[in-house]
């Protein structure tokens, strides 16, 4: 699964730790999700969407989908 986490984070000038704190997860989790090494569960994906004020599909796209 592809995601725009890094771009969205850059737009807000947040570090991985800033985002991790808001999501109440570890910095490693944010790093793994951002690099596409780990796909978050649906509840965590909703939480990420809430933090950015976007819909899930605005952040995560299926593999091969246009960004």
């Amino acid at each position, binding site marked *: 699964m592809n995601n725009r986490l*890094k771009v969205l*984070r*850059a737009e807000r*000038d*947040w*570090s*991985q*730790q800033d985002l991790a704190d808001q999501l*109440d*997860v*570890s*910095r*490693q*989790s944010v*790093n*793994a*999700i951002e*690099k596409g*090494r*780990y796909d*978050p*569960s649906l509840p*965590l994906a909703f939480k990420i969407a809430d933090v950015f004020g976007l819909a899930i599909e605005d952040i995560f796209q299926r593999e091969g989908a246009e960004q």
Partner: protein
Amino acid sequence: MTDAIEEKPEVAGRSPAFWGAMMGISYACLGGLAATGAIEGVALLMLMMVPTALMIPAIKSANRRVDSGGNACFAKGEAQKRYLKRVAISTSIYMVSMGALVFVAKTPDVAFFWVVLSALAPGLAILGVFWAIGRLIVEEQDEFLRMLIIRQSLIATAIALSAATIWGFLESADVVIHLDAYWWAVLWFVGLAIGAVSNRVEYGAWGAV
């Protein structure tokens, strides 16, 4: 904006990985000495306390990292703190019970009840570590870290069970020497370390056990 995971706080002292490696090397040396018959019986039991004692600096080092906000190996979290506390208690009980086991082994004419009790106690203390890992899986709120811990445990289980099965059949055929069964638990802990390396390669983080 920081791009990666590298923003580690400064933490004094050796890392938990260093002490873990020291434990692994100590167990490997003891395993080698025991397999070749160079040491056995009470001497082996006494020397088994050395690698376990290395858990103390390992736990202290891990606690320093948890308190400082964590790095690539240990994340900040209450579940990890409770886990480390439980492992510290189990390790302490193990050390004391090993002392008792050595004492009973060296004392003549001990009642059978005390022989059984002293032999059971170290095993039960190690069960405490298994229980602590189980509780960590239940209590860890970070789903990514929980997945890493489960992955580590499965890799360790696969290695230990596979080795035990192969060795068992080889032993039945008198190809290899007899090994006391607690060595499979030791191998399981080595498997946890291998699982951590696998996590690092696959997911970029070591895990939390």
